[in-house]
């Protein structure tokens, strides 16, 4: 039986991808950011997940304004890195897991989550930066990846409650897959940042850390945070944190924190990173 063994949250700032691609991860600016991922790189070498369900948002790369799916799941064989305006990142192709992806897609639809199915697309920094942060620079990615793209750009974006519930449904779907697979779920994006308008540059260390606290243990309070609170407290792009709730929802009633890292700033953004494991209640 397939099982979700860990949940990882991480920012996915494009500049981190550039730092990796240009070999700058140890310099004065990036060193403290990447240092907080060393623990996780070792963890991943031990855990060797078979599949990562990678929750992210597309930043006007695979989807333009022609089609805006709220929740979309990648069921394809493989995905190439997108050209975001300065050439594609030089990273390995991302290998999918169509069997598990289609199983999850079907299960979710029967569970009343009306998913969009994607068979072909390119993946942008939202997906490839977390892979680089957790796996470094291998010749090929050590795990299969199921992309799960969430609209967090055009409003209304899905509510926190809906994201959490989708995570719960993903948890049930994975458990009903007969093959013995070690599956992780990653929630990416955030933390506080605003990339637009005169208020750009907003960061909120205190709120971000309170949010991380709420993903640990048995509280589900975070699912009720309203969109306006993310915008007021963490900036317009802080709304990406609803994607962390899909990861958290998939881990079940209770979690334990294995690793935690926070750093300000990376370009315009606060970097947050959590490694959680599901913990049986009681």
């Amino acid at each position: 039986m397939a099982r979700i063994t860990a949940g990882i949250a991480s920012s996915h700032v494009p500049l981190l991808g550039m730092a990796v691609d240009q070999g700058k991860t140890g310099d004065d600016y990036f060193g403290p950011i990447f240092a907080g991922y060393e623990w996780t790189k070792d963890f991943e070498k031990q855990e060797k997940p078979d599949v990562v369900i990678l929750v992210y948002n597309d930043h006007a790369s695979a989807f333009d304004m022609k089609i805006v799916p709220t929740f979309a799941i990648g069921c394809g064989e493989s995905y190439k890195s997108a050209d975001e305006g300065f050439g594609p990142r030089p990273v390995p192709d991302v290998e999918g897991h169509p069997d598990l992806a289609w199983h999850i897609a079907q299960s979710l639809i029967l569970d009343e989550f009306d998913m969009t199915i994607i068979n072909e697309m390119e993946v942008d920094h939202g997906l490839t930066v977390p892979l680089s942060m957790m796996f470094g620079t291998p010749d090929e990615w050590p795990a299969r990846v199921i992309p799960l793209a969430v609209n967090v750009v055009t409003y209304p974006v899905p509510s926190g409650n809906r994201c959490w519930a989708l995570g719960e449904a993903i948890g049930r779907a994975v458990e009903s897959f007969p093959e013995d697979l070690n599956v992780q779920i990653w929630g990416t994006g955030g933390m506080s940042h605003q990339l637009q308008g005169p208020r750009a540059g907003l960061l909120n260390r205190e709120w971000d850390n309170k949010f991380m606290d709420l993903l640990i243990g048995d509280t589900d309070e975070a699912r009720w945070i309203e969109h306006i609170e993310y915008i007021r407290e963490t900036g317009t792009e802080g709304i990406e944190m609803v994607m962390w709730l899909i990861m958290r929802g998939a881990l079940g009633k209770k979690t334990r924190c294995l690793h935690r890292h926070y750093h300000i700033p990376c370009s315009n953004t606060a970097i947050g990173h959590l490694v959680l494991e599901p913990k049986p209640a009681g």
Partner: protein
Amino acid sequence: MTERKRITDIHAYLEQFEDVPGTRVFTAARARKGYHINQCAMSLMKPENRERFKADERAYLEEWNLSEEARQAILDRDYNALLDMGGNIYFLSKIISTDGLSFAEAVSSMTEHNFEDYKAMMAAGGRSPEGVRSIKGKY
């Protein structure tokens, strides 16, 4: 943090987004208004389009169904004006990349700071949410 409730009033939901200082939330109304601006910016993901744009920006923009005001704002790289016209930063970022600018530099151009001061603000912990959460509530 907040009480448990579902969003039932779409008007109240949308109205609160207009209460955040210096911010244009990308609502459906803005997405409709800025559709062609965003699709035009998006076209710069293709290298051949980037080359044509760089060779003659004005001519490239003439090919798109844009207002003269929007064309001028793109030529001026006036990102605040483009946000007002329904542009979204993730689409506009294709122009930023085409210019070879860092995201932070383009973002700083929308604020009261020059790039150096903006970087210094970020290094010092970023802009505080204090006083810029709500126009009406002034908190």
